[in-house]
């Protein structure tokens, strides 16, 4: 097994824990000295990791937004003068809140790129490869790090930011590109576009490694992407707040997403009691950054639901624990319908099981006082009895897998919106209904 940073990736566990503790102490010293925000939140004389978890309060998104609002754009949060920044990124702010804004110093950016190199190297990317980054290259941090990671590794990067889907498919084929970075939603879009162009990606392109990240995905979606491209799909994730990749999938065990441990302390807490859960139990990811100097994070409650497993359960030789299946969902993704808990990935899992389904959109509505799932499905040119049969099969599969019978509606080809970034395919419209 080859590693990007063999020392860090295979460091004996006890040595690693001690190293992380020294890193945490240095990070807290830096933050207390230079950040007004952190000076208020970080107690003095923290004596151990356990003491740290017991005494440092959880950091919520609202805390960061309040710190930002105190003196925009970055507020009291930074530990260094923003003039040292060489990049600015921000979250999309789609939840109606203002965006979280961050900057990276040159050192921060070098670290961020290195986390991508760690991930890409683990997936098999090497200097002789060509990589296409199908990403908007905007304010959102997204795949910027992948672009620069490919460069640093010595691979050839093809920045396909401003191109449409047909041009991207053409590039994949014409240049026989081996590495592709994009969201799972957009991978599905490229597959559909290639079909419209009469191109068999598995046969005519040469994609071998796909980094499909930035959103949870179902097993069906992974399989569909892999079959269509004839390539292996890997998972990886980072956040704007954290500033780099914190986990990546290795080649040894499917869906084993190793935590880049020297860069972070990852606690997993029960969503209600906020107490630690054990290996193999679901909980919310709480992260502490150990590398970034400009904008630091201590005990950030991410709302990502994860299951951590010990490194020994993966055969890759890394001593870094892993999240099984990556980010399973967001805490706030879960919806209750007639007592049944439903997430977007559960719906995707059912619908991707139907080869005929090209795209879908689902919503939760209240119909005559009863909460119902309404599913709009695009399924090519199917009509008449075939359409009725497909709707019936989807309804039965929903009932069998999720326990709810949905209303299924077939819509014309191309009528549903496609996503180039994170797809939102489940909308809860119950709040919009007039209250009785």
């Amino acid at each position: 097994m080859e590693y990007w940073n063999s020392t860090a990736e295979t460091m004996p566990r006890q040595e690693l824990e001690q190293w992380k503790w020294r890193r945490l102490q240095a990070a807290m010293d830096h933050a207390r000295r230079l950040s007004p925000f952190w000076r208020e939140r970080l107690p003095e004389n923290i004596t151990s990791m356990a003491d740290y978890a017991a005494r440092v309060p959880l950091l919520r998104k609202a805390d960061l937004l309040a710190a930002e609002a105190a003196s925009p754009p970055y507020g009291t949060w930074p530990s260094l003068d923003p003039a040292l920044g060489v990049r600015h990124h921000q979250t999309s702010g789609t939840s109606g809140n203002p965006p979280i804004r961050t900057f990276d110093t040159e050192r921060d950016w070098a670290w961020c790129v290195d986390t991508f190199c760690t991930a890409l190297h683990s997936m098999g990317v090497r200097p002789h490869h060509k990589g296409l980054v199908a990403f908007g290259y905007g304010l959102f941090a997204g795949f910027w790090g992948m672009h620069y990671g490919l460069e640093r590794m010595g691979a050839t990067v093809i920045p396909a930011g401003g191109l449409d889907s047909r041009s991207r498919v053409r590039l994949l084929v014409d240049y026989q590109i081996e590495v592709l970075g994009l969201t799972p939603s957009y991978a599905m879009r490229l597959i559909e576009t290639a079909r419209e162009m009469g191109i068999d990606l598995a046969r005519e392109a040469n994609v071998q490694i796909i980094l499909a990240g930035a959103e949870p995905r179902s097993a069906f979606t992974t399989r569909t992407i892999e079959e269509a491209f004839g390539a292996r799909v890997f998972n990886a994730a980072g956040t704007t707040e954290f500033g780099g990749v914190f986990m990546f999938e290795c080649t040894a065990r499917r869906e084993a997403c190793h935590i880049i441990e020297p860069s972070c302390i990852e606690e997993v807490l029960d969503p209600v009691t906020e107490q630690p859960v054990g290996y193999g139990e679901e909980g919310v990811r709480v992260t502490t950054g150990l590398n970034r100097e400009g904008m630091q994070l201590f005990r950030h409650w991410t709302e990502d639901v994860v299951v951590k497993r010990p490194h020994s359960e993966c055969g890759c030789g890394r001593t870094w624990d892993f999240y099984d299946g990556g980010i399973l969902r967001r805490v706030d993704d879960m919806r209750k319908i007639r007592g049944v808990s439903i997430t977007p990935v559960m719906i995707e899992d059912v619908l991707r099981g139907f080869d005929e389904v090209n795209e879908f959109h689902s919503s939760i509505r209240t119909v005559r006082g009863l909460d119902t799932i309404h599913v709009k499905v695009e399924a090519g040119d199917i009509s008449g009895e075939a359409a009725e049969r497909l709707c019936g099969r989807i309804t039965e599969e929903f009932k069998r897998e999720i326990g709810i019978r949905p209303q299924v509606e077939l819509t014309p080809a191309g009528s549903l919106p496609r996503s180039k970034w994170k797809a939102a395919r489940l909308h809860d419209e119950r709040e919009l209904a007039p209250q009785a």
Partner: protein
Amino acid sequence: MTSANSPLRPEQVEQLLGSYRSLGLLEQSCAVPAVLAAVRAARAELRIALDGQGVEFEYYRGHDDSLVA
């Protein structure tokens, strides 16, 4: 401190730390924009590469200016 299982030889670590130190001195004294930009970038990348090899020094700027190796 250097990790016991580093594949870097001790003399290589010393050479790299020496380079880092030299680049730091240049960063403080050089006024040529093109050279200064290259020095800063090289220093940032060298620091993270050494960090990945478990070489512990200068976690944060201004926090520990003496190189501990």
